[in-house]
C-alpha cells in the first residue's frame, strides 16, 4: 500500500466536507467583494468612501431626488436606479455611498482581522516553542507574563490600550505609529489574544518534547534552533493553522467591538465596526445602516468559523472518525502506514 502524507489525507478529508467548503467559498466571495472596492468606487459609484454628497441630487428613473433630505434623512437603496450610484443608499447626514463604504469597510475589517491573527499566531508560536523547549525559568517567566495579560478582561485591556494609543500614537524606537493608523488596533488585538493561543501551543510543545524523536535529535547533538524549528514546529503546525482561522474570527469580532466603543479603528478609516457604530445613531430611521455591516461581519465570521471547524476535523481525524463510526456510516478510511 502506498503511504500518503498526512497533509494529503487531510486535504482529501476536507474536500469531502461539503459544508466547510461551501462556507470557505463564501469567505472567498466576501474577500473578493471587499477587494473589488476601488473598482466599484471609481467605475460604478464614481466616488470615494469618505466623499460627502450632502447637498447633491441623483436622477432616478427620470426623477430628481435629494441624496440627503432637509431633515438629514439619507436616501434608501437605489440598486441600479442611478447606474449603480448609491446602490445601497446613502449613509446618513453626509450622504456617503453606503455600498462603497461597505466594501472599503470590509477591506479594513478583513485586513485588521487577518493581520492581527497572524501576529497572534506568530507570537504564540515563538513563545510556545521557547516555553516548551527550554522549560525551566524561561517557561516560568513566559507563563507569568501570559497570566498577567490573561487576567485582564479582554475588552477592557483592548479598550484601555486602544484609548491610550488612539490619543497618543505609538513610538517603538525609531518606528512612529500615528494614533489613527490602522496598525494600532491590529497590534493591540494581536497582542491581546496571544495568551489564548500560546497556552495550547505551549501545552502541545511540552508534550512533544518528551517524545523519543526529540530525545534522539538532542542526543545527536542538534542545537535548540534545529529542534524547535525542525522537529517541534512541524508537529504543531496543524494546531496553528486551526488556531489561525479561529483567531481571524475572534479578531474581527474584537475589532468591531472596539471600533463600536470608539477605541478601535479611527476615522477617517472605515471598518464594519465603525459603520455599525455610525448606523446605531440612526437605527430607528435607517435601520439598514446598522443591519448591513453587522450582517456582513456575521457572514464573514460565520464562514471562517465553519471552515475552521472543517479544518480541525480534517487535520485531526480521530474525532471525525469516532463520529462517523458512531453514526453508523462508512468505516474509517485507510490510515497512513
Amino acid at each position: 500500500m502506498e503511504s500518503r502524507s498526512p497533509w494529503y489525507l487531510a486535504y482529501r478529508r476536507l474536500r469531502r466536507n461539503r459544508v466547510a467548503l461551501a462556507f470557505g467559498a463564501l469567505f472567498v466571495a466576501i474577500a473578493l467583494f471587499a477587494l473589488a472596492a476601488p473598482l466599484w468606487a471609481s467605475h460604478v459609484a464614481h466616488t470615494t468612501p469618505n466623499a460627502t454628497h450632502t447637498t447633491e441630487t441623483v436622477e432616478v428613473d427620470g426623477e430628481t431626488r435629494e441624496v440627503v433630505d432637509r431633515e438629514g434623512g439619507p436616501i434608501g437603496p437605489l440598486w441600479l436606479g442611478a447606474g449603480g450610484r448609491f446602490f445601497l443608499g446613502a449613509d446618513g447626514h453626509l450622504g456617503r455611498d453606503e455600498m462603497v463604504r461597505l466594501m472599503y469597510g470590509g477591506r479594513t475589517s478583513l485586513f485588521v482581522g487577518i493581520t492581527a491573527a497572524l501576529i497572534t499566531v506568530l507570537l504564540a508560536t515563538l513563545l510556545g516553542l521557547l516555553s516548551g523547549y527550554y522549560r525551566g525559568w524561561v517557561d516560568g517567566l513566559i507563563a507569568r507574563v501570559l497570566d498577567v495579560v490573561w487576567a485582564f478582561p479582554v475588552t477592557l485591556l483592548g479598550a484601555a490600550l486602544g484609548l491610550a494609543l488612539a490619543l497618543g500614537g505609538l513610538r517603538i524606537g525609531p518606528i512612529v505609529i500615528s494614533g489613527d493608523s490602522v496598525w494600532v488596533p491590529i497590534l493591540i488585538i494581536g497582542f491581546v489574544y496571544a495568551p489564548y493561543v500560546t497556552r495550547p501551543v505551549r501545552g502541545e510543545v511540552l508534550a512533544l518534547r518528551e517524545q523519543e524523536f526529540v530525545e534522539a535529535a538532542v542526543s545527536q547533538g542538534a542545537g535548540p534552533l534545529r529542534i524547535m524549528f525542525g522537529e517541534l514546529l512541524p508537529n504543531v503546525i496543524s494546531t496553528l493553522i486551526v488556531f489561525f482561522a479561529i483567531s481571524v474570527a475572534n479578531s474581527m469580532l474584537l475589532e468591531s467591538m472596539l471600533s463600536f466603543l470608539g477605541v478601535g479603528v479611527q476615522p477617517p478609516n472605515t471598518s464594519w465596526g465603525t459603520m455599525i457604530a455610525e448606523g446605531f445613531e440612526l437605527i430607528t430611521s435607517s435601520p439598514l445602516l446598522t443591519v448591513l455591516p453587522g450582517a456582513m461581519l456575521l457572514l464573514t465570521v460565520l464562514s471562517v468559523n465553519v471552515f475552521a471547524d472543517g479544518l480541525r476535523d480534517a487535520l485531526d481525524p480521530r474525532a471525525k472518525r469516532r463520529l462517523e463510526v458512531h453514526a453508523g456510516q462508512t468505516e474509517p478510511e485507510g490510515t497512513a502506514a
Partner: protein
Amino acid sequence: MRKLQAVLAVAMLTMVAIGVSSCGSSGGKEGGTLTGSYASFPELDPTVAFSAEGWTAMYDTYLPLLTYKHAGGEEGTEVVPALAESLPEVSSDGKTYELRLRKGLEYSDGTPVKATDFTASIERMFKLDSYGSSFFTDIVGAEEFAETKSGGISGIKADDETGEITIELNRPRGTFTNELALLYAAVLPADTPAKNLTANPPPATGPYEIVKVERGRGWTYERNPEWAKSNAARIPEVPSGHVDEIEISVARNSSTQVNEIERDKTNWMQTVVPADLYSKVKDKYEGTQFRIERPINIYFFWMNTSRPPFDDVKVRQAVNYAVDPAALERIYSGALAASHQVLPEGMPGHESFDLYPHDMAKAKELLAEADPSDREITVWTDNESPNNDAGAYYANLLEELGFDVKLKTINADVYFQTIGNPSTSNLDTGWADWFADYPHPNDFIEPNFAAESPFNLSRLDVPKLDEKITSLGEEQLDAQVEGEYAQLDREIMERAPWAPYGTNTVSTFVDSEIELDEVIFNPTMGQDLTSFQFK
C-alpha cells in the same frame, strides 16, 4: 402620579399657605409628581456645576443674590433680584457694587440666611477650584485667596446686622451683574464644607429642595417647606412651582427616553431629542408636546490666523462663502438655526447680518486671488455626532477648494484641551462650539477674540479690536453699549477669523399630561422646574 392622594393633601395645605399668587395662570392642576429623565448625571453642587444639565437642575433650588428672570426668550436674559432686595448699585467708576440681603430669609434646614454667607460662598468657589471662579478674580483680594486659600477675600464686606454687602473690584467689569446671577454665586450656609457635595446637596433657598440622590441614577426634589414659610413672600421674582415632587432618573440611551415619553411613562426629558427621531417627533408632536428652544450658542469653524494659509483674510472669507448652510442643515437634522455671525439671536447686542452669503463661485474666485502657497492643512473635530459629521463635511469642502487635508478626530472629552493646548502642532482649522455662560455679549467676544485669552482659537490679534473689547467690557450694558457690540460683531466678521454656521437648537419634549405652553425655557438656565404643570 401614584402617590396622588397623599400628595394632593399636602398640596392643599401648601396652597393655603402660599395663597393665590403662586398658582398658574391657566386652568392646569396644582400638585402631582413630575418624572423627568436626563442623559447624564450632572454635578448637584451649585458652586461647581458648569454644565447646562446642572444649571437646569438647580435653578429653582439654589438662589444667588440675583437671578435670571423666570421667562423665556429675550425677557429671560434680564437679571432680577433674588436673595438681594434689588439690583446692585454700581459706583460711577464701575468698581464698587452695593447690595442688601433681604431680611428674614431661611435655608431649607431652618437656619437664617446671613450676609456673610455670601462671602463664604464666594470663597468656597475658590477653595473648590470651580470653573466659575474665573469670573470673580477681579474682586480685590480674590487672586491672593485663590493662591493661599486662606485669609478671606478682602474685597467683599458683609454686615449681618444690616444685610449690606459691598464688593470692590480691581477694575470695572461690565459683566459682573450677570455673573452674580450665576449658580456659582449661589448663597450657601457659611459652614458648608469645601468639597463637592453632589452626593449630599447643601440646604436650599429656592422653591424646591433636593431630598434624595442616587449617584449615577437619579435624584428627587420636594417642595422646600421654608420657601413657603419664609422666602416666597419676600421674593416675588421667583415662582413657587406647581408640582409637589420631581423625580429625575438618568437614562443613557436618548432613544429610550423618547420612547418613554411617547408611552406616557415619563413626563419630561431634559435631553435633546436625538437626530434619529427628531423629524418624526417634530412632525408628530410639535405644538402639543414638542417645542423648539433657542439657547444662546454658536457653532463654527475656526481658522488659525497666525499661520498660513489662514493668515490671509481672503482665504478666510473664501471659506465663509464656501460653507453651505443647506449641507449643515441636513447634518444637524433640521435642528440648526443658521447664523453667520458671532453673536447669536437671543443675545443682547445681536443685530442680524450676513456678510458672506453662500456662493461657491465667489469662494473660488477669492481663493484664486489669494493663491496660498501652503495648501497642507489639518482639520480638527471631535468624535461626537453630529459635530464629527460637520467636521468631515468641512474637511471635504476644503479639499474641494483645493487644499490637501488631513482630518483628525479627537475624543470629545479631550478635544478642547487638545486644540486649546498651545503645544499641539498643526492647529490650522477645525470645528468648535461656544455656549453662553450668561447673556452678555462680552462672554462671547472676549474669551474668543481678546489677544490675551487662552481660548482664542483663531489667535486673532488686532490691537484696535482688542482695545474696543476691553473698553466695552468695562461698561454696564445698556442700549448704546448693545449697539456698539453689534458693531463689533460686524467688525470681527469682516476679518472672518471664524466661519460661524448656526445655533444648535434644543427642544422641550413632554408627555401628554403636561401643559406644554406653560413650560418656561430660560435661555441661560434651561427649563424652569417651577413652570411644569399637569393638565
